[in-house]
Protein backbone atom coordinates (compact mmCIF):
# COMPACT_ATOMS: atom_id res chain seq x y z
CA UNK A 1 0.00 0.00 0.00
CA UNK A 2 1.44 3.31 -1.04
CA UNK A 3 0.46 5.54 1.86
CA UNK A 4 1.84 2.91 4.21
CA UNK A 5 5.17 3.09 2.48
CA UNK A 6 5.21 6.89 2.53
CA UNK A 7 4.59 6.74 6.27
CA UNK A 8 7.42 4.28 6.78
CA UNK A 9 10.14 6.63 5.61
CA UNK A 10 9.81 9.41 8.19
CA UNK A 11 9.09 6.71 10.76
CA UNK A 12 12.55 5.33 10.04
CA UNK A 13 14.05 8.75 10.70
CA UNK A 14 12.54 8.56 14.15
CA UNK A 15 15.04 5.79 14.90
CA UNK A 16 18.06 8.08 14.60
CA UNK A 17 18.02 9.76 18.02
CA UNK A 18 17.22 6.65 20.12
CA UNK A 19 19.63 4.61 17.99
CA UNK A 20 22.53 6.97 18.62
CA UNK A 21 21.64 7.11 22.32
CA UNK A 22 21.57 3.34 22.73
CA UNK A 23 24.82 2.82 20.83
CA UNK A 24 26.49 5.50 22.93
CA UNK A 25 25.16 4.48 26.34
CA UNK A 26 24.46 0.79 25.96
CA UNK A 27 26.75 -0.72 23.34
CA UNK A 28 29.90 1.38 23.75
CA UNK A 29 30.00 0.89 27.56
CA UNK A 30 30.29 -2.85 26.99
CA UNK A 31 33.41 -2.21 24.96
CA UNK A 32 34.81 -0.45 28.02
CA UNK A 33 33.88 -3.33 30.29
CA UNK A 34 35.64 -5.71 27.94
CA UNK A 35 38.69 -3.48 27.70
CA UNK A 36 39.05 -3.00 31.43
CA UNK A 37 38.45 -6.68 32.15
CA UNK A 38 41.57 -7.33 30.10
CA UNK A 39 43.77 -4.81 31.88
CA UNK A 40 45.87 -5.01 34.99
CA UNK A 41 44.75 -3.92 38.40
CA UNK A 42 46.53 -0.84 39.67
CA UNK A 43 46.41 1.13 42.86
CA UNK A 44 45.42 4.36 41.22
CA UNK A 45 42.42 6.50 40.39
CA UNK A 46 40.77 5.12 38.26
CA UNK A 47 42.12 1.83 39.60
CA UNK A 48 43.32 0.12 36.44
CA UNK A 49 46.20 0.41 33.98
CA UNK A 50 45.00 2.01 30.78
CA UNK A 51 45.17 -0.66 28.12
CA UNK A 52 45.30 1.48 25.06
CA UNK A 53 45.05 5.03 24.04
CA UNK A 54 43.57 5.64 20.62
CA UNK A 55 45.46 8.90 20.28
CA UNK A 56 48.81 7.16 20.42
CA UNK A 57 48.52 5.69 16.96
CA UNK A 58 48.75 2.23 15.47
CA UNK A 59 52.12 1.19 16.92
CA UNK A 60 51.04 1.94 20.44
CA UNK A 61 47.85 0.04 19.74
CA UNK A 62 49.83 -3.01 18.65
CA UNK A 63 51.98 -3.08 21.77
CA UNK A 64 48.85 -2.53 23.82
CA UNK A 65 47.15 -5.54 22.27
CA UNK A 66 50.21 -7.60 23.08
CA UNK A 67 49.91 -6.51 26.70
CA UNK A 68 46.29 -7.55 27.05
CA UNK A 69 45.95 -10.21 29.64
CA UNK A 70 43.32 -12.75 30.47
CA UNK A 71 44.62 -13.00 34.03
CA UNK A 72 41.37 -11.65 35.44
CA UNK A 73 39.36 -14.33 33.69
CA UNK A 74 41.82 -16.99 34.78
CA UNK A 75 41.40 -15.76 38.35
CA UNK A 76 37.62 -15.94 38.15
CA UNK A 77 37.54 -19.43 36.71
CA UNK A 78 40.01 -20.79 39.24
CA UNK A 79 38.98 -18.87 42.35
CA UNK A 80 36.52 -20.78 44.51
CA UNK A 81 34.82 -17.60 45.67
CA UNK A 82 33.74 -16.80 42.13
CA UNK A 83 32.85 -20.32 41.11
CA UNK A 84 30.72 -20.70 44.23
CA UNK A 85 29.09 -17.34 43.63
CA UNK A 86 28.07 -18.29 40.08
CA UNK A 87 26.79 -21.68 41.20
CA UNK A 88 24.89 -20.13 44.08
CA UNK A 89 23.36 -17.45 41.83
CA UNK A 90 22.10 -20.07 39.41
CA UNK A 91 20.77 -22.30 42.21
CA UNK A 92 18.97 -19.42 43.86
CA UNK A 93 17.54 -18.26 40.52
CA UNK A 94 16.28 -21.74 39.59
CA UNK A 95 14.74 -22.34 43.02
CA UNK A 96 13.16 -18.89 43.19
CA UNK A 97 11.78 -19.12 39.65
CA UNK A 98 10.23 -22.51 40.44
CA UNK A 99 8.65 -21.06 43.60
CA UNK A 100 7.38 -18.07 41.63
CA UNK A 101 5.79 -20.32 39.04
CA UNK A 102 4.20 -22.46 41.74
CA UNK A 103 2.75 -19.42 43.54
CA UNK A 104 2.07 -17.23 40.53
CA UNK A 105 0.26 -19.78 38.40
CA UNK A 106 -2.79 -20.29 40.67
CA UNK A 107 -3.13 -16.51 41.07
CA UNK A 108 -2.95 -15.88 37.31
CA UNK A 109 -5.37 -18.75 36.76
CA UNK A 110 -7.81 -17.28 39.27
CA UNK A 111 -7.54 -13.89 37.55
CA UNK A 112 -8.26 -15.39 34.14
CA UNK A 113 -11.38 -17.04 35.55
CA UNK A 114 -12.84 -13.79 36.90
CA UNK A 115 -15.67 -12.05 35.05
CA UNK A 116 -14.16 -9.69 32.48
CA UNK A 117 -14.93 -6.52 34.42
CA UNK A 118 -13.14 -7.86 37.48
CA UNK A 119 -10.16 -9.03 35.47
CA UNK A 120 -9.15 -5.43 34.78
CA UNK A 121 -9.41 -4.62 38.48
CA UNK A 122 -7.37 -7.66 39.45
CA UNK A 123 -4.70 -6.71 36.93
CA UNK A 124 -4.39 -3.20 38.38
CA UNK A 125 -4.18 -4.72 41.86
CA UNK A 126 -1.30 -6.94 40.80
CA UNK A 127 0.55 -4.13 39.02
CA UNK A 128 0.24 -1.46 41.75
CA UNK A 129 2.72 -3.05 44.21
CA UNK A 130 5.18 -3.21 41.33
CA UNK A 131 4.97 0.58 41.10
CA UNK A 132 5.92 1.04 44.73
CA UNK A 133 9.63 1.03 45.26
CA UNK A 134 11.58 -2.19 45.18
CA UNK A 135 13.73 -1.17 48.12
CA UNK A 136 10.66 -0.23 50.14
CA UNK A 137 9.10 -3.62 49.55
CA UNK A 138 12.25 -5.33 50.83
CA UNK A 139 12.31 -2.99 53.79
CA UNK A 140 8.69 -3.88 54.53
CA UNK A 141 9.77 -7.49 54.92
CA UNK A 142 12.68 -6.56 57.20
CA UNK A 143 10.05 -4.94 59.42
CA UNK A 144 8.06 -8.15 59.51
CA UNK A 145 10.90 -10.65 59.76
CA UNK A 146 13.15 -8.99 62.31
CA UNK A 147 13.78 -10.49 65.73
CA UNK A 148 10.86 -8.76 67.46
CA UNK A 149 8.95 -8.30 64.22
CA UNK A 150 5.34 -9.01 63.51
CA UNK A 151 5.84 -12.59 62.35
CA UNK A 152 7.62 -13.63 65.53
CA UNK A 153 5.05 -11.79 67.65
CA UNK A 154 2.24 -13.68 65.95
CA UNK A 155 4.02 -17.01 66.21
CA UNK A 156 4.73 -16.41 69.91
CA UNK A 157 1.17 -15.30 70.60
CA UNK A 158 -0.18 -18.43 68.95
CA UNK A 159 2.30 -20.53 70.97
CA UNK A 160 3.61 -22.05 67.77
CA UNK A 161 7.15 -21.31 68.89
CA UNK A 162 8.53 -20.83 72.39
CA UNK A 163 11.14 -18.22 71.46
CA UNK A 164 11.66 -15.85 68.54
CA UNK A 165 12.82 -17.51 65.35
CA UNK A 166 15.74 -16.01 63.45
CA UNK A 167 14.37 -15.10 60.03
CA UNK A 168 16.63 -12.31 58.87
CA UNK A 169 19.95 -13.24 57.27
CA UNK A 170 18.62 -16.61 56.19
CA UNK A 171 17.89 -18.09 52.80
CA UNK A 172 14.21 -18.31 53.75
CA UNK A 173 14.05 -14.54 54.12
CA UNK A 174 15.84 -14.10 50.81
CA UNK A 175 13.41 -16.37 48.98
CA UNK A 176 10.44 -14.56 50.52
CA UNK A 177 11.92 -11.27 49.34
CA UNK A 178 12.60 -12.53 45.82
CA UNK A 179 9.17 -14.13 45.42
CA UNK A 180 7.51 -11.01 46.79
CA UNK A 181 9.41 -8.65 44.47
CA UNK A 182 9.16 -10.67 41.27
CA UNK A 183 5.62 -12.06 41.63
CA UNK A 184 3.98 -9.50 39.28
CA UNK A 185 6.58 -10.36 36.59
CA UNK A 186 5.46 -13.98 36.76
CA UNK A 187 1.71 -13.36 37.07
CA UNK A 188 1.26 -10.90 34.21
CA UNK A 189 2.58 -12.97 31.27
CA UNK A 190 0.84 -16.07 32.66
CA UNK A 191 -2.41 -14.18 32.97
CA UNK A 192 -2.05 -12.78 29.44
CA UNK A 193 -1.93 -16.26 27.90
CA UNK A 194 -4.52 -17.79 30.24
CA UNK A 195 -7.01 -14.99 29.57
CA UNK A 196 -6.70 -15.42 25.82
CA UNK A 197 -7.41 -19.14 26.08
CA UNK A 198 -10.73 -20.33 24.67
CA UNK A 199 -12.77 -21.64 27.64
CA UNK A 200 -14.65 -23.97 25.28
CA UNK A 201 -11.51 -26.12 25.06
CA UNK A 202 -11.51 -26.86 28.78
CA UNK A 203 -15.26 -27.42 28.71
CA UNK A 204 -14.99 -29.83 25.82
CA UNK A 205 -12.37 -31.86 27.67
CA UNK A 206 -14.62 -31.91 30.73
CA UNK A 207 -17.65 -32.92 28.70
CA UNK A 208 -15.69 -35.76 27.20
CA UNK A 209 -15.13 -37.12 30.69
CA UNK A 210 -11.72 -35.83 31.77
CA UNK A 211 -11.45 -35.21 35.53
CA UNK A 212 -10.48 -31.59 36.43
CA UNK A 213 -6.81 -32.30 37.08
CA UNK A 214 -6.55 -34.02 33.72
CA UNK A 215 -8.28 -31.08 32.02
CA UNK A 216 -5.69 -28.85 33.59
CA UNK A 217 -2.70 -31.03 32.86
CA UNK A 218 -3.63 -32.01 29.29
CA UNK A 219 -5.35 -28.83 28.06
CA UNK A 220 -4.75 -25.72 30.16
CA UNK A 221 -1.12 -26.27 31.08
CA UNK A 222 0.24 -27.02 27.56
CA UNK A 223 -1.67 -24.07 26.13
CA UNK A 224 -0.16 -21.73 28.72
CA UNK A 225 3.44 -22.71 27.91
CA UNK A 226 4.24 -19.45 26.05
CA UNK A 227 3.20 -17.49 29.13
CA UNK A 228 5.26 -19.77 31.35
CA UNK A 229 8.27 -19.23 29.12
CA UNK A 230 7.92 -15.46 29.25
CA UNK A 231 7.35 -15.41 33.01
CA UNK A 232 10.25 -17.74 33.75
CA UNK A 233 12.72 -15.73 31.65
CA UNK A 234 11.45 -12.41 32.97
CA UNK A 235 12.20 -13.59 36.51
CA UNK A 236 15.19 -15.89 36.05
CA UNK A 237 17.54 -13.50 34.25
CA UNK A 238 17.42 -10.55 36.68
CA UNK A 239 17.39 -12.85 39.73
CA UNK A 240 20.75 -14.36 38.69
CA UNK A 241 22.30 -10.89 38.91
CA UNK A 242 20.25 -9.77 41.92
CA UNK A 243 22.10 -7.68 44.48
CA UNK A 244 19.76 -5.83 46.84
CA UNK A 245 17.61 -8.73 48.06
CA UNK A 246 20.38 -11.16 49.00
CA UNK A 247 22.37 -8.28 50.46
CA UNK A 248 19.60 -7.15 52.79
CA UNK A 249 17.82 -10.40 53.57
CA UNK A 250 20.28 -13.31 53.20
CA UNK A 251 23.25 -14.11 55.40
CA UNK A 252 26.68 -12.94 54.36
CA UNK A 253 28.42 -16.31 54.38
CA UNK A 254 27.57 -17.28 50.83
CA UNK A 255 27.35 -14.52 48.27
CA UNK A 256 25.62 -14.32 44.93
CA UNK A 257 27.56 -13.06 41.94
CA UNK A 258 25.87 -9.66 41.99
CA UNK A 259 27.12 -9.16 45.55
CA UNK A 260 30.61 -10.40 44.72
CA UNK A 261 30.81 -8.01 41.81
CA UNK A 262 29.59 -5.15 44.01
CA UNK A 263 32.16 -5.97 46.73
CA UNK A 264 34.98 -6.30 44.23
CA UNK A 265 34.03 -2.96 42.76
CA UNK A 266 33.12 -0.79 45.72
CA UNK A 267 35.06 -2.35 48.60
CA UNK A 268 38.12 -3.93 47.00
CA UNK A 269 38.23 -1.34 44.21
CA UNK A 270 39.36 -4.03 41.81
CA UNK A 271 37.68 -2.77 38.66
CA UNK A 272 39.35 -5.17 36.22
CA UNK A 273 38.22 -8.23 38.17
CA UNK A 274 34.72 -6.79 38.60
CA UNK A 275 34.54 -6.17 34.85
CA UNK A 276 35.68 -9.70 34.10
CA UNK A 277 33.03 -11.00 36.53
CA UNK A 278 30.38 -8.95 34.72
CA UNK A 279 31.42 -10.40 31.38
CA UNK A 280 31.31 -13.96 32.69
CA UNK A 281 27.85 -13.24 34.11
CA UNK A 282 26.77 -11.91 30.73
CA UNK A 283 28.05 -15.05 29.02
CA UNK A 284 26.19 -17.25 31.51
CA UNK A 285 23.00 -15.31 30.76
CA UNK A 286 23.49 -15.12 26.99
CA UNK A 287 21.23 -18.04 26.09
CA UNK A 288 18.27 -17.00 28.27
CA UNK A 289 18.76 -13.38 27.14
CA UNK A 290 18.58 -14.33 23.46
CA UNK A 291 15.53 -16.52 24.11
CA UNK A 292 13.82 -13.68 25.92
CA UNK A 293 14.60 -11.24 23.13
CA UNK A 294 13.10 -13.49 20.48
CA UNK A 295 10.00 -13.96 22.59
CA UNK A 296 9.63 -10.22 23.18
CA UNK A 297 10.10 -9.40 19.51
CA UNK A 298 7.59 -11.99 18.37
CA UNK A 299 5.04 -10.76 20.88
CA UNK A 300 5.38 -7.08 19.99
CA UNK A 301 5.54 -7.50 16.26
CA UNK A 302 2.71 -9.97 15.91
CA UNK A 303 0.30 -7.21 15.01
CA UNK A 304 2.35 -6.00 12.06
Amino acid at each position, binding site marked *: *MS*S*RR*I*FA*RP*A*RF*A*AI*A*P*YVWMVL*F*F*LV*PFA*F*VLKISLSQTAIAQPPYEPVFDLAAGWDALKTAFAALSIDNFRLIVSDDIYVFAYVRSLTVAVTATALLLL*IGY*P*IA*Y*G*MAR*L*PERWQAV*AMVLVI*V*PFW*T*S*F*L*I*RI*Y*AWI*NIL*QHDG*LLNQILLALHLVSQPVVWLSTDTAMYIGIV*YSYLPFMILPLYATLAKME*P*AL*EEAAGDLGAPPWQVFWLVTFPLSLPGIGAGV*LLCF*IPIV*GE*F*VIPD*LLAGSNSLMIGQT*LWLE*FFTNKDWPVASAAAIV*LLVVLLVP*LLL*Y*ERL*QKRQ*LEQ*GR
Partner: protein
Amino acid sequence: MRKIPRLSRFNVASLALGLAFLYLPILILVIYSFNASRLVTVWGGWSLRWYQELFNDRAMIEAAWMSLRVAVSSATIATLLGTLAAVALSRGERFRGRTLFSGMLYAPLVMPEVITGLSLLLLFVALNAERGFWTVTIAHTTLTMCFVAVVVQSRLGSLDRSLEEAAMDLGCDPVRAFLSVTLPLIAPAIVAGWMLAFTLSLDDLVIASFTTGPGSATLPIRIYSEVRLGVKPEINAICTLVIAVIAVVIVIASLASKLSSSQGESAAPL
Protein backbone atom coordinates in the same frame (compact mmCIF):
# COMPACT_ATOMS: atom_id res chain seq x y z
CA MET B 1 -20.80 -13.87 23.60
CA ARG B 2 -18.07 -15.65 25.45
CA LYS B 3 -19.23 -17.94 28.17
CA ILE B 4 -17.74 -17.03 31.53
CA PRO B 5 -15.99 -20.01 33.09
CA ARG B 6 -16.94 -20.86 36.63
CA LEU B 7 -14.76 -19.65 39.47
CA SER B 8 -13.79 -22.55 41.65
CA ARG B 9 -13.21 -22.21 45.36
CA PHE B 10 -9.54 -22.84 44.67
CA ASN B 11 -9.45 -19.88 42.28
CA VAL B 12 -10.97 -17.55 44.86
CA ALA B 13 -8.66 -18.73 47.62
CA SER B 14 -5.50 -18.34 45.53
CA LEU B 15 -6.55 -14.86 44.42
CA ALA B 16 -7.34 -13.73 47.96
CA LEU B 17 -4.12 -15.15 49.39
CA GLY B 18 -2.07 -13.75 46.54
CA LEU B 19 -3.42 -10.23 46.94
CA ALA B 20 -3.03 -10.38 50.73
CA PHE B 21 0.59 -11.45 50.24
CA LEU B 22 1.17 -8.53 47.90
CA TYR B 23 -0.47 -5.85 50.03
CA LEU B 24 -0.09 -6.74 53.72
CA PRO B 25 3.63 -5.99 54.04
CA ILE B 26 3.22 -2.52 52.52
CA LEU B 27 0.16 -1.84 54.66
CA ILE B 28 2.04 -2.84 57.81
CA LEU B 29 4.93 -0.56 56.88
CA VAL B 30 2.59 2.39 56.37
CA ILE B 31 0.76 1.79 59.65
CA TYR B 32 3.99 1.55 61.65
CA SER B 33 5.22 4.84 60.21
CA PHE B 34 2.51 6.49 62.36
CA ASN B 35 3.65 4.63 65.44
CA ALA B 36 4.56 6.82 68.42
CA SER B 37 6.95 4.27 69.89
CA ARG B 38 10.64 4.25 68.99
CA LEU B 39 10.56 0.47 68.92
CA VAL B 40 9.29 -0.22 65.46
CA THR B 41 7.29 -3.23 66.52
CA VAL B 42 5.65 -2.02 69.71
CA TRP B 43 2.50 -0.04 69.12
CA GLY B 44 2.57 3.21 71.07
CA GLY B 45 -0.42 5.01 69.57
CA TRP B 46 -0.78 7.20 66.49
CA SER B 47 1.76 9.96 65.96
CA LEU B 48 3.39 12.09 63.28
CA ARG B 49 6.63 12.24 65.23
CA TRP B 50 8.78 10.42 62.65
CA TYR B 51 7.59 12.68 59.88
CA GLN B 52 8.69 15.70 61.90
CA GLU B 53 12.08 14.13 62.47
CA LEU B 54 12.33 13.41 58.80
CA PHE B 55 11.89 17.06 57.90
CA ASN B 56 14.87 17.89 60.09
CA ASP B 57 17.04 15.34 58.32
CA ARG B 58 18.74 17.53 55.74
CA ALA B 59 20.69 14.72 54.05
CA MET B 60 17.48 12.82 53.49
CA ILE B 61 15.69 15.84 52.06
CA GLU B 62 18.58 16.63 49.74
CA ALA B 63 18.61 13.05 48.52
CA ALA B 64 14.86 13.16 47.92
CA TRP B 65 15.19 16.39 45.95
CA MET B 66 17.99 14.90 43.85
CA SER B 67 15.89 11.79 43.16
CA LEU B 68 12.87 13.82 42.12
CA ARG B 69 14.92 15.94 39.73
CA VAL B 70 16.58 12.90 38.20
CA ALA B 71 13.25 11.08 37.90
CA VAL B 72 11.47 13.97 36.18
CA SER B 73 14.27 14.75 33.74
CA SER B 74 15.18 11.17 32.88
CA ALA B 75 11.52 10.17 32.48
CA THR B 76 10.93 13.09 30.13
CA ILE B 77 13.95 12.38 27.92
CA ALA B 78 13.20 8.65 28.02
CA THR B 79 9.59 9.20 26.96
CA LEU B 80 10.71 11.28 23.98
CA LEU B 81 13.38 8.78 22.86
CA GLY B 82 11.31 5.70 23.69
CA THR B 83 8.31 6.96 21.72
CA LEU B 84 10.53 7.71 18.71
CA ALA B 85 12.02 4.23 18.96
CA ALA B 86 8.56 2.64 19.18
CA VAL B 87 7.37 4.57 16.10
CA ALA B 88 10.45 3.50 14.14
CA LEU B 89 10.02 -0.14 15.12
CA SER B 90 6.31 -0.46 14.51
CA ARG B 91 5.92 1.89 11.53
CA GLY B 92 9.36 1.96 9.90
CA GLU B 93 8.97 -1.42 8.14
CA ARG B 94 12.46 -2.77 7.38
CA PHE B 95 15.57 -0.67 7.77
CA ARG B 96 19.26 -1.29 8.09
CA GLY B 97 20.37 -2.14 11.61
CA ARG B 98 16.85 -2.89 12.77
CA THR B 99 17.79 -6.15 14.49
CA LEU B 100 20.58 -4.50 16.45
CA PHE B 101 18.23 -1.64 17.34
CA SER B 102 15.47 -3.84 18.72
CA GLY B 103 18.07 -5.99 20.45
CA MET B 104 19.53 -2.98 22.23
CA LEU B 105 16.05 -1.89 23.27
CA TYR B 106 14.87 -5.22 24.69
CA ALA B 107 18.07 -6.33 26.43
CA PRO B 108 18.11 -3.71 29.24
CA LEU B 109 14.61 -4.80 30.29
CA VAL B 110 16.02 -7.92 31.91
CA MET B 111 19.75 -7.21 32.02
CA PRO B 112 21.01 -7.48 35.62
CA GLU B 113 21.39 -3.96 36.94
CA VAL B 114 24.91 -4.55 38.21
CA ILE B 115 26.08 -5.03 34.62
CA THR B 116 24.30 -1.96 33.24
CA GLY B 117 25.54 0.16 36.14
CA LEU B 118 29.13 -1.02 35.93
CA SER B 119 29.36 -0.55 32.17
CA LEU B 120 27.96 2.99 32.30
CA LEU B 121 30.29 3.95 35.10
CA LEU B 122 33.30 2.74 33.12
CA LEU B 123 32.13 4.85 30.19
CA PHE B 124 31.74 7.96 32.37
CA VAL B 125 35.15 7.43 33.90
CA ALA B 126 36.72 7.01 30.46
CA LEU B 127 35.04 10.21 29.29
CA ASN B 128 36.25 11.93 32.43
CA ALA B 129 32.70 13.09 33.11
CA GLU B 130 31.97 14.58 36.49
CA ARG B 131 29.62 12.15 38.21
CA GLY B 132 26.41 13.42 39.73
CA PHE B 133 23.03 14.58 38.52
CA TRP B 134 23.71 14.26 34.80
CA THR B 135 25.39 10.89 34.83
CA VAL B 136 22.55 9.37 36.87
CA THR B 137 20.01 11.02 34.58
CA ILE B 138 21.70 9.60 31.48
CA ALA B 139 21.91 6.14 33.06
CA HIS B 140 18.25 6.17 34.06
CA THR B 141 17.21 7.45 30.64
CA THR B 142 19.04 4.56 28.99
CA LEU B 143 17.24 2.03 31.16
CA THR B 144 13.76 3.53 31.18
CA MET B 145 13.47 4.48 27.50
CA CYS B 146 13.38 0.76 26.76
CA PHE B 147 10.33 0.35 28.99
CA VAL B 148 8.66 3.35 27.33
CA ALA B 149 9.42 1.88 23.90
CA VAL B 150 7.77 -1.42 24.82
CA VAL B 151 4.65 0.21 26.26
CA VAL B 152 4.18 2.58 23.29
CA GLN B 153 5.04 -0.09 20.74
CA SER B 154 2.39 -2.46 22.02
CA ARG B 155 -0.17 0.34 21.77
CA LEU B 156 0.97 1.20 18.21
CA GLY B 157 0.71 -2.46 17.27
CA SER B 158 -2.93 -2.61 18.30
CA LEU B 159 -3.91 0.59 16.46
CA ASP B 160 -5.97 0.43 13.30
CA ARG B 161 -3.52 1.58 10.64
CA SER B 162 -6.23 2.46 8.16
CA LEU B 163 -6.76 5.64 10.19
CA GLU B 164 -3.27 6.90 9.33
CA GLU B 165 -3.71 5.80 5.77
CA ALA B 166 -7.04 7.58 5.49
CA ALA B 167 -5.47 10.78 6.79
CA MET B 168 -2.75 10.58 4.16
CA ASP B 169 -5.15 9.67 1.37
CA LEU B 170 -7.02 12.81 2.34
CA GLY B 171 -3.88 14.83 1.78
CA CYS B 172 -1.98 14.91 5.07
CA ASP B 173 1.75 14.50 4.80
CA PRO B 174 3.13 11.68 7.04
CA VAL B 175 4.30 14.04 9.80
CA ARG B 176 0.94 15.78 9.92
CA ALA B 177 -0.89 12.43 9.84
CA PHE B 178 1.24 11.24 12.75
CA LEU B 179 0.72 14.39 14.79
CA SER B 180 -3.02 14.70 14.25
CA VAL B 181 -4.09 11.04 14.09
CA THR B 182 -1.52 8.67 15.62
CA LEU B 183 -0.23 10.82 18.44
CA PRO B 184 -3.62 11.48 20.10
CA LEU B 185 -4.41 7.78 19.89
CA ILE B 186 -1.18 6.66 21.54
CA ALA B 187 -1.19 9.48 24.13
CA PRO B 188 -2.42 7.21 26.96
CA ALA B 189 0.47 4.81 26.31
CA ILE B 190 2.93 7.72 26.27
CA VAL B 191 1.59 8.95 29.61
CA ALA B 192 1.80 5.43 31.02
CA GLY B 193 5.35 5.18 29.70
CA TRP B 194 6.38 8.42 31.40
CA MET B 195 4.87 7.21 34.64
CA LEU B 196 6.68 3.91 34.45
CA ALA B 197 9.95 5.68 33.67
CA PHE B 198 9.42 8.08 36.57
CA THR B 199 8.79 5.37 39.15
CA LEU B 200 11.60 3.15 37.85
CA SER B 201 14.02 6.04 38.20
CA LEU B 202 12.75 6.97 41.65
CA ASP B 203 13.17 3.34 42.66
CA ASP B 204 16.58 2.50 41.28
CA LEU B 205 19.40 1.81 43.71
CA VAL B 206 21.98 -0.25 41.87
CA ILE B 207 22.50 1.79 38.70
CA ALA B 208 22.43 5.06 40.64
CA SER B 209 25.05 3.74 43.09
CA PHE B 210 27.42 3.03 40.24
CA THR B 211 26.86 6.22 38.29
CA THR B 212 26.60 8.90 40.97
CA GLY B 213 29.49 10.73 42.49
CA PRO B 214 30.41 11.62 46.06
CA GLY B 215 28.01 14.03 47.71
CA SER B 216 25.09 13.44 45.38
CA ALA B 217 23.24 10.47 46.79
CA THR B 218 19.77 9.67 45.52
CA LEU B 219 16.96 8.76 47.90
CA PRO B 220 17.27 4.97 47.43
CA ILE B 221 21.03 5.20 48.11
CA ARG B 222 20.32 7.12 51.31
CA ILE B 223 17.55 4.74 52.39
CA TYR B 224 19.72 1.74 51.59
CA SER B 225 22.58 2.93 53.77
CA GLU B 226 20.13 3.52 56.64
CA VAL B 227 18.37 0.18 56.17
CA ARG B 228 21.68 -1.67 56.36
CA LEU B 229 22.03 -0.33 59.90
CA GLY B 230 18.65 -1.68 60.90
CA VAL B 231 14.99 -0.75 61.08
CA LYS B 232 14.23 2.82 62.08
CA PRO B 233 10.82 4.50 62.30
CA GLU B 234 12.03 7.42 60.17
CA ILE B 235 12.63 4.98 57.34
CA ASN B 236 9.03 3.83 57.60
CA ALA B 237 7.98 7.46 57.33
CA ILE B 238 10.10 8.25 54.26
CA CYS B 239 8.95 5.00 52.60
CA THR B 240 5.33 5.98 53.23
CA LEU B 241 5.96 9.39 51.67
CA VAL B 242 7.53 7.79 48.60
CA ILE B 243 4.51 5.48 48.27
CA ALA B 244 2.24 8.52 48.54
CA VAL B 245 4.12 10.40 45.80
CA ILE B 246 3.94 7.38 43.49
CA ALA B 247 0.22 6.93 44.26
CA VAL B 248 -0.46 10.56 43.38
CA VAL B 249 1.49 10.21 40.12
CA ILE B 250 -0.45 7.07 39.22
CA VAL B 251 -3.81 8.71 39.94
CA ILE B 252 -2.98 11.87 37.96
CA ALA B 253 -1.56 9.94 35.05
CA SER B 254 -4.45 7.50 34.86
CA LEU B 255 -6.93 10.39 34.96
CA ALA B 256 -4.98 12.12 32.19
CA SER B 257 -4.84 9.02 30.06
CA LYS B 258 -8.54 8.37 30.60
CA LEU B 259 -9.29 11.90 29.48
CA SER B 260 -7.11 11.69 26.39
CA SER B 261 -8.28 8.20 25.48
CA SER B 262 -11.93 9.25 25.61
CA GLN B 263 -11.00 12.23 23.44
CA GLY B 264 -9.17 9.93 21.07
CA GLU B 265 -12.14 7.60 20.81
CA SER B 266 -14.55 10.39 20.08
CA ALA B 267 -12.17 11.81 17.52
CA ALA B 268 -11.60 8.50 15.81
CA PRO B 269 -14.95 8.07 14.03
CA LEU B 270 -14.82 11.58 12.53
